[in-house]
């Protein structure tokens, strides 16, 4: 039997795992890390970079580096969240042919599922390398609050990467499975999942090996990146006040701000304050250089982001209320996602739930582990363990300009089905056009259109006399189908509602073929060699020491010159690493070593480290 892997396709980081007899195992990437940045880039030579390599060269190649693609997947171009994100990122976005979002990289436009497929492809490669066999099937997780279009787009991304996505499951559900699998629990748990891009909360009953989701709520535009954005905005504002220069206008500066903000946020989970040092962040005139130096404290970070944290708590409240559940019946709270490392978030969760969060799950890996477990359960046809998930949004129809009629309410366990009778609104109406929508608003326009169909050849009758039975079915794998039947004539019509990822089947086929060509041509995994390891070590050292010395020597002519040289050497080294160019790596080493020894001398004189 072929192995099925579990993939947590995250906004900022992704993770892949496999279930083995002894339990789920996270598969490490070539650099030895259990998670891989969900960042992709295309170099000028057309080479694709994914993960750490792509992230590292982001500063020098901001226009061709895509991060946070998950926030755009399966979304329409004109929605405000997309427009807001498009205005903030350092890569170029544009409207695609099907009202979807495309990004421009190097030579051409890429659809978002294509971008995500590169990340999935990387996860597939990691698994294949670790397991020593070809992998063609995966269970992929998505935020619980994703709608069907977003889920379909994720499936399409898998297809382009040559992966059959056998099941899409919700991230918090996967986390609950990994938390409770095989423990024989009988209790109610809440999953608080604060990831890089999205926030979800799910409440589940666990008992007799059944994991039953009772309620779920979330916000697909609330995540760690919003925290980063707050820090960026703060730094930008401070710099603006001081120098009158808007760093957002400079793509490279923006990318450096973004990296520094993320790092500062992470640092503040472990320490009370951190220094942000960005030398040469701006150069307003030739020969003139401005540096950015700020100290960020935990308290300041809380001040900048407390409304985001409160939003997450309000969503928890909603999850309990909408399913009429009592907070007091919850026996455990499980924290998932990198953001839950933030002390203030842990504290706030403890306050709200009235108990300390459960320890013992790894916030970055638990979702992939849950996906791997579900993959195994499905593959084995398990009789002991079962996931019962819910549909996260209302599903219904809109008939000819009417209101949104909900047929299957949110938080309904799937599989499920529901029937409602509709009628004609005009005399002798020959056809009825039925739009299938998903969303939580009574106003149709604010919901997501999943598909539409027409029931025609209706007999001539006065309005209101024709009865049409409309039955909605959601299967266990989340596929929605709608059957409409004219009660009098028995004429029936069934359509399978394939949510739209913004891509047509032929486009997906083309992209899959193109990707396959690329894989055969380029993507031979290379072993990390000694040269690369050396250079990475040097880079790390110099980046640590540079801010400290720059504060001291930046004023002097000698110092400015030395810093400039060092900065240039750093960029060259990064570019060489990013492009995986052996010769350039060797060349970049010398200047870096010289700069490092010089700085070490300086710090030694100062009595520093």
């Amino acid at each position: 039997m072929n192995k099925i892997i579990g993939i947590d396709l995250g906004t900022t980081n992704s993770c892949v795992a496999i279930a083995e007899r002894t339990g789920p195992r996270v598969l490490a990437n070539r650099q030895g890390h259990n998670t891989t940045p969900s960042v992709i880039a295309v170099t000028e030579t057309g080479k694709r970079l994914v993960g750490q390599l792509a992230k590292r060269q982001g500063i020098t190649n901001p226009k061709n580096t895509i991060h946070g693609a998950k926030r755009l997947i399966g979304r329409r171009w004109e929605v405000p969240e997309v427009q807001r994100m498009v205005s903030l990122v350092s890569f170029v976005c544009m409207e695609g042919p099907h009202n979807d979002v495309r990004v421009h990289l190097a030579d051409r436009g890429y659809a978002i599922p294509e971008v995500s497929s590169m990340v999935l492809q990387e996860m597939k490669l990691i698994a294949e390398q670790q397991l020593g066999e070809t992998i063609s099937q995966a269970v992929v997780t998505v935020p619980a609050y994703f709608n069907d279009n977003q889920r379909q787009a994720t499936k399409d991304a898998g297809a382009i990467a040559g992966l059959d996505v056998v099941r899409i499951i919700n991230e918090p559900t996967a986390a609950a499975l990994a938390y409770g699998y095989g423990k024989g629990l009988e209790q109610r748990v809440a999953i608080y999942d604060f990831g890089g891009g999205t926030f979800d909360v799910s409440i589940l009953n666990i008992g007799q090996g059944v994991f039953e989701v009772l309620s779920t709520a979330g916000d697909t535009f609330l995540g760690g990146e919003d925290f980063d954005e707050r820090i960026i905005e703060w730094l930008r504002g401070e710099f603006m006040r001081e120098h009158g220069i808007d760093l957002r206008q400079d793509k490279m500066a923006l990318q450096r701000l973004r990296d520094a903000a993320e790092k500062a946020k992470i640092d503040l989970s472990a320490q009370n304050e951190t220094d942000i040092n960005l030398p040469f962040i701006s150069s307003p005139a030739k020969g003139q250089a401005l540096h950015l130096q700020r100290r960020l404290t935990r308290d300041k970070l809380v001040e900048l982001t407390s409304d985001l944290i409160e939003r997450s708590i309000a969503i928890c409240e909603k999850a309990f209320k909408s399913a009429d559940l009592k907070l007091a019946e919850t026996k455990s709270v499980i924290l998932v996602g990198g953001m839950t490392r933030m002390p203030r978030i842990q504290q706030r969760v403890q306050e709200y739930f009235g108990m300390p969060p459960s320890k013992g799950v790894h916030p970055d890996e638990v979702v992939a582990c849950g996906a791997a477990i579900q993959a195994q359960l499905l593959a084995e046809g398990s009789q002991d363990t079962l996931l019962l998930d819910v549909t996260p949004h209302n599903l219904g129809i809109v008939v000819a300009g009417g209101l949104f009629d909900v047929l299957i309410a949110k938080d309904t366990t799937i599989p499920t089905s529901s029937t409602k009778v509709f009628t004609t609104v005009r005399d002798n109406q020959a056809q009825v056009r039925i739009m299938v929508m998903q969303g939580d608003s009574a106003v149709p326009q604010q919901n997501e259109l999943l598909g539409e169909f027409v029931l025609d050849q209706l007999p001539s009758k006065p309005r209101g006399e024709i009865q049409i039975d409309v039955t909605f079915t959601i299967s266990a794998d989340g596929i929605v189908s709608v059957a409409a039947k004219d009660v009098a004539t028995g004429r029936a019509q069934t359509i399978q509602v394939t949510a739209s990822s913004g891509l047509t089947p032929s486009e997906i086929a083309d992209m899959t073929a193109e990707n396959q060509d690329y894989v055969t041509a380029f993507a031979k995994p290379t072993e990390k060699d000694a040269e690369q390891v050396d250079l990475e070590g040097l880079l790390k050292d110099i980046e640590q020491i540079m801010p400290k010395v720059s504060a001291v020597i930046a004023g002097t002519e000698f110092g400015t010159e030395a810093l400039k040289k060092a900065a240039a050497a750093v960029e060259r080294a990064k570019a060489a690493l990013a492009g995986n160019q052996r010769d350039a790596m060797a060349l970049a080493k010398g200047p870096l070593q010289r700069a490092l020894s010089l700085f070490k001398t300086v710090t030694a004189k100062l009595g520093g480290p």
Partner: protein
Amino acid sequence: MDDCDLSAADRSAIEEAEKLAQGTHWEILGLMGEPTATDVKRAYFAVSKRYHPDRYFGKRLGPYRARLEALFVRAKKAHDVLVDDEQRKQYAAKYPAPQPPREPTPEEIAREKRLEERRKQIAGERSAKRKEGLKTELLGLKVRKLASNARAALDSGDLEAARSAVESLSAENPDDKETLFLSGQLLEKQGKRVQALARYRAARELDATDADVTKAIQRLTGRE
């Protein structure tokens, strides 16, 4: 054959469940009496694990996919009603839960115990009788066998074998017409006519109608 990989056993289990699904909420979940909300939940989880289509993931289910989903939806509906106090009350007013057998009173238990003991006793007696009957039957078989051996030996003139058979026969079944008659025959053949006549007469005491015995007495006395 068809587009479905389910085994015959799986199919008939599904059909059985579908029959239950036609009935009340209590029946599909297999509940009776006064189940608590936890009991309802447990029953629902157990049914879900059996009929959720995920159990057959990767198999072709053909028309059974929709049927499994319908079964699951049915169980879920039953659960939703029975787990909610208000809805359950209304439902139970119309379709009361099947009652489990009533707990017996102490008197009933005592009575049942007495009856049980009596049953045992009767059974014991029967069994003793059966044993006795069996013994008799076995004895009859043995006797018949010995008698036929003796007859055969007498007919063939093997007096030694006849003597041994008649001796055994006399030991097993002394007061028997047949034994006495055969014993008489042996004595007659051995030339002990007086003793033989005595045996024949004893046999006639037991059964005066036996033609062979009468004939033997006439032969030895010339009359009677």
